[in-house]
Structures are given as C-alpha cells and as structure tokens.
C-alpha cells in the first residue's frame, strides 16, 4: 500500500463505551462525563485551548469513547486547572476534576512527563516540599534571602523537622504513591525500549 493511501484512507472504529479503558474511567468516578452534551462551553472557556492543541471537550469525548490516545497525549497536561470549565458546564460536570482523574489514570499507565516524575519522586517524595530550599549548595541564596528578612534560614516546615519528612514518606508508601511512581517508571522504561527497538529495526530495514 502506498504511503498516500495509508494517509488518506482512515478506518477508525468508534470503540463504544464498553472497552476496558472506559470501564477504568467509570471506576475512577468519571461516569458523570456521560452527561456531556458536547456544547463546547469547556473548550470555549479554556485559556489553555486558546494557545495549545488541548481541547477540553475533545479530551472528555475521547475518555467517553474509550480512546486511549487521550492518556498518551501531552494535551491533558496543558490544563492549568483554572476551573472555568468546571464552573460553566451546563451539565454540571466537574470538568476540571475529570481532567485531573484522567491524569491519574495516565500516570497509572505510565504516561508521566520526565519533569513531572522528577518533581514527584526526587523532590516531593524526598523532601516533603514541592519547591525546597534545603540543598546545601543549590539553595544557599534562598536561605540567605530568608535571613535578610529576619527569618530563620529554614522555615518551621518539614525542612526543620526531619522526622516529619519520614512521616510524610510513610503516608505516601501506605497510600501507594511510591509504588505508583515505581510502576510508572517501569512502564515508561519499557515503552522507551520498545520504541528504540522499532526505530532500530526501521533504520536497519532502510539500510538494506
């Protein structure tokens, strides 16, 4: 088949509402999206959609029709959680919360950006802060800045209480956060290896 034909004849099948993935959406409490009337109020309200390829309604629609590509796309990570769509949806769907749940499923399936993974694992899990100031070298100037305002170099947060960091980590382990991240890392690595393999095969084929 020539490339052109493959490009222009598309036989996409609507997956219906009973696929494994749509069941997952429902288990995650996303069934409210079935009420969506595709009015576009969410997309029209979305400050992100005005500058990116992210389309709130389309993401909701894909979730509803069991289209898994919604999890892979970086699009759903373009929502700034401004909550306009949540406020205005005429079917009273808590749209932003739905996007957040979609992201939860994406992470579960290993679709998490590198930068987000680092933030979650190396910063938040490790220090208890999302924006820390305790690195002896990298954060020196921030502690100095604190002191210049008559504040102690480290705030009275987890930074001053190492046992509180442990406490947070215990909770995160118990609630399954660590396992979730580790699994995501594994899935990510597996996918990367697969992609590399395919790329390699392709170049070899081309060489032939």
């Amino acid at each position: 088949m020539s490339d052109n034909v493959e490009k222009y004849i598309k036989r996409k099948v609507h997956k219906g509402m009973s696929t494994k993935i749509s069941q997952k959406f429902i288990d995650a409490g996303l069934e409210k999206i079935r009420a969506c009337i595709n009015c576009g109020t969410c997309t029209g309200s979305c400050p992100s959609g005005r500058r990116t390829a992210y389309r709130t309604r389309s993401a909701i629609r894909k979730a509803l029709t069991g289209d898994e590509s919604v999890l892979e796309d970086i699009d759903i990570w373009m929502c700034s959680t401004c909550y306009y769509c949540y406020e205005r949806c005429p079917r009273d769907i808590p749209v932003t919360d739905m996007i957040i749940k979609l992201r939860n499923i994406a992470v579960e399936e290993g679709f998490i950006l590198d930068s987000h993974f680092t933030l979650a694992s190396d910063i938040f899990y490790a220090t208890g802060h999302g924006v820390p100031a305790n690195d002896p070298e990298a954060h020196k100037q921030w502690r100095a800045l604190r002191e210049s305002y008559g504040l102690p170099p480290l705030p009275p947060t987890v930074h001053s209480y190492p046992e509180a960091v442990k406490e947070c980590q215990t909770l995160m382990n118990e609630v399954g956060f660590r396992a979730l991240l580790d699994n995501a890392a594994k899935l990510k690595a597996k996918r990367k290896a697969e992609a590399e393999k395919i790329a390699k095969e392709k170049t070899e084929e081309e060489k032939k």
Partner: protein
Amino acid sequence: MTETKKEIIVTGKEKPRIGVYVCHCGINIAGVVDVVKLKDYALTLPDVVLAREYKFMCSDNGQSMIKEDIEAGLINRVVVAACSPRMHEPTFRLVCKEAGLNQFLFEQANIREHATWVNMYDPEGAYEIAKDHIRMSVAKARKLLPLEVQKVKVDPSCLIIGGGISGMNSALDLADEGYKVYLVERTPTIGGHMAQLDKTFPTMDCSACILTPKMVDVGRKEKIEIMTYSEVVDVSGYVGNFEVTIMKKPHYVDQEKCTACGSCAENCPITCGNEFDLGMGTRKAIYIPFPQAVPGEYTIDMEKCIKCGICAREDVCEPGAIKYDDKPEYVTVKVGTIIVATGWDLYDPTELGQYGYGRYPNVITGLQMERLLSSFGPVLGKPVRPSDLEAPHSIAFLQCVGSRNFREGGHSYCSRVCCMYATKQARQYKEKHPEAEVYIFYMDIRAFGKGYEEFYESAAENFGISYVRGRIAEVREGENHNIVIRAEDTLLQTPIELEVDLFVLSCGLEAKADADQVASLLSIQRSADGFFMEAHPKLKPVDTLTDGIFVAGVAQGPKDIPDAVAQAKGAASSAAALMAQGEVEIEPYYSVVIEHLCSGCRTCQSLCPFGAIDFDEFKKIAVVNPALCKGCGTCVSACPSGAMVQNHFANFQLNSIINVAVKQPTVENGGK
C-alpha cells in the same frame, strides 16, 4: 346484556366470597411471574372462593368474566391483581356496578408496577412480592364495606386566572358554549405576553393583528366578565362549588366614567419606564400599558404619582373620572370550575455573569429584542443597540440561556420557544438589514412544530443567518461597547473569538415568581420544573390533581402560541364537559364522626387543612362536611378519642392489611 341487573345487597354481615382475577398484562406480568401459580396461591387465601387468570383483564372479555361471576352469585367481593389502580380502578368499579355489586367492594393489587416491572431481572423476588400484594388485597377485601357515592351540583360558571392568549381562548370557547366566565387578570389589560411580540413564527403573522381582534372579542362577549388589575385572594369550596374572592386593585380612575381620551396622560408631569417595553420606552404616571389595551381605561401608578392634581383638573379630565381616594374592592363569585392560565416569566440572565447582562449595555434579552423589533415598540421597529442607538451591523444570539442548564439556578428543561423566536428575530433583522451579519450559537436547534424545520432551513439558506454549533463560554466588552464572544465551534473543534455589535440572550420561559402562592391558594401541585402539574402527562394534560381545576398554556409548561391555544381550548372543553353534566360524583372517602366517642375537643377542626369540619354547638361534637373533606386522614390520626373514622380506610381495614403484610395467614387468623 347490559340491562341493569338486580342489585346484590351486601351489608358486610354475610360471609365474604372473594373472586381473585390475576391479569397477565400481555407479557408485562406473565413474562416475569407464573400467573397460574399466583392464581392457585390466591385460592389458598381465606374467603377466596374462586380465582382466575386472563391475558388482559381490562379487555371486554376480562371484564365479562368478572361480571358473569358476580351475576351468577358466586362472589360478593372482587380483587383484581394487575396494574396500578390509577388507570383501571374506575374500569373495574364500573364492572362491579353494572353487575349490581357495590363498586367499593372492589380492591386492586398492583403486581405490575410494584412487582414485575421493578424486579424484571429477579423473577423469584417478583413472584414473592406479587404474592404479598395479593394476600394484602384479599385481607382488605374481606373487610370492605359498601359505600354510596356523593353527587354534587356543578355551577355553570368558570373562573379563569390570567388573561393571556391562553386564558382568552378558554374564555371565548366557554362563553360561546353558554357558560358564565370571570376572567381575572393582574395587569390593567388582557393580552399577556403575546401583546409584546412583533411577528409570530413560523407564519410571521403580525402578533398584534391576530391578537387585538381576539382581545376586542373577549371585551365584547356578554358572558365574559373581565376583571383586570385584579387578583384572586381566596378560594374555598370544591369541584362544582368554588367560592372565589377577587381583589380589584384601585385604578384611581373611575373606569365607568373614563372615556380613554388620554388627556390626563398628556398633561401628567411624571415620566417613567414602561414595563411593557421592559424599561426601554416610557409612560406617564397615569397610563394605559399600550395603545390597543383592553379595557382601554386609564390607571394611576401610585408609586410614581406625586399627587400634583393636574389630571383631576376639570379642563384635563372632562368626565371627572380621577378618584385619588379609590380603594381596593373585594368581590366574591361562585363558580363550578377554574382554569389557571397564568403564563410565564422570562428567565433573568443576570446570574450568568459570563454573559455580561446588566454589566454591558449591548447585551439584551430576547424579549427586549422583540420590543425593539416591534413596529409599535420604543424604536418603532428599527432596532438599535442601547449604547449608541445605532443599528447594529452584527448580532449574535445565544440559545438556551437559563434552559437545559443543570446547574443550580438554571432550568434543566428545554424552553421550546427560543430556538424559533431567535430564528424569527434574526430573519426579521436580516429583512431590514440584509447586509448585517447575524449569528445564532446553539447546542441543538429544536424546530419540531408544523412548518418549523422549513422556517429554520429558509433562515439559513435564504436569509444567510450563520448557525454556529457551540454554547458561548464567555463574553467581554471590546472597543466601542462591542461584545467579544468566546466559544468553541464544536463542528470545527476550534475555539473562536468573534466581535459583534449586539448580543441577544435567548432566555427561556420559567414559572411565574408567585406560582407557589397560586398553587397553595388553589391546592394544586407543581412539577419539579416549577410549572403547574397536570394530572397525567399523556391522558389528562389539562386537568390538575384537584377536581374541577384545569390548567392551560405556559402555566403548565413552556410552549408556543399554537400549543398554548390548543391546550386552552382543551381546558375549556374539559371544564365544559364537567359543567354540562350538571353534577359530579365525589368519592365517599370522607371521614365520619362516631358521635358517642367524640369528646368535643375540636382538635380535628383546628387541623383540617380543608376546613371540612364544623362543630355542632348543640350536641358538642364535630361534624364532617363530606363535600369538603378530601379524605386526607389528618383528623383520624389526630383524634385523641378515636372518634374519627375514614371511609374505606378505616383502622380495622388498614390493620387487616398490616396483619398479613409480613406473615402468612395461619389457621388462627382465619386461613383455610
């Protein structure tokens, strides 16, 4: 076969002989449970002498089965295990009656709605529930007593509340059939909202041209007594015999003397916003709402009047009609029937802050647009936008404002007229300004009426109106008070931004703000959408659950003029049918006082919500007026002496049900 049979006398003393008839209801019941087994089960119950099952008990054949068994003297009580009594209790009662058995010796077990429908996927459970229902009905049937129906006269007169197009049509039909009509209208004129419309979809007849002659007709009919500027303040009585008190608000102008010359208004120094033009036009403190108003006499708005005395001057009002000390007047009328045709209010879009109504001058409602388009409106039918009074070059309409909105404060229903009125208004504007750009933003276009789809198609094809599928997300004010719209064109899957000169909100219709008071005044119900509730959505669309009271027009739910008029004529016909009979039967479920038990404490009297209990000062006991009693049972449960008994629902009858509800009958309590 149908000649009246000799009556079967049942006093309650003789042994009950019960016939149980199990209906298949096609497969509705028989498809889920074994009806033959149910029939056999019935035969095991006390006093059941025969049991049968049949495909459709309500059919001719089914009815004859019962009739024959009664006439053959086999049974003296009937239990039908079938559907809800709401539909067929009257059917089977009539069967009993025609066979000569007192119709209250009948009991219906609802094994369809209560058992087989709700437990379709659990046949065994459904079977058990069906058994329970049959057992309970048989238990009650054993205790039933014959009762006599009451008949009351129906006064051949009708009160119609609301003088819009619906109320007017009901009034005209009833008057033509010879009934006396009292047409009570709150504002100083009849006509309702239709008077505010310019043209009407889909035929584009001029609203005034078709409405005004009707208004004049109503005004002329001898049988119709118009009471404008009036409100119903009290309703008592019951079907056929309502007593209604109406307050006529003071006009401060003698309506008999006023010749509607208008000289007073010319001279009145006070100018204020005109309600009729939604604040976009003006009137004087002494006014008629609009030129074609019926009746045409003047009224003083005392909130605005400064009592300068000018209008009362002889040279101003020659007939001397001005009456500053006018007082409200109360009149009481007796009517047999009532029609509620109170219409609607427009949804107030202020709450939807994203649309800028009330904040930006160039955002208006569809009803305001209607006035702007009206040739006798504030701008004589040449629409301009509020900020600069220039004709807009571009207009966007937004559909479903306040409607199809499941959020708090919104209405979940479709308002049914706004798709068409927006299309109409867009077309009208295009007729006047073919060069203008007109957009209609919609979720779905609902063009379901006769000629509506054609009207819609032509708006797009012949008038070039742009329909954009997407609900507008937000607007803001751009330069020059223009309105900048943000939405998704859902068919292109693209967010869009569009700047227009004028933004029209196609607001929906909602229940009147005072629907609550009207409902409690008349003891009628409202449905979840706030409108008055019909007795049955399909089969009793103009009846309310209160006998003798009917509902017409938008008061019952959003509808356009054709539907409103159709329903108004239906309501008139139903009211006439009742009045034509001259009398009605009312169910004898009233309470009765066991005289020797009543201690005369009057507890019941103070609690009865229908004022049905009098006090016999001589005997010092309570007395129930059967015609007023609605059988609510409040007095029965309140009476400390146990002196109140409610017919057909007496304690011993209800107890008989409760006794078998949870246990199988045993030999001790009379089982076979």
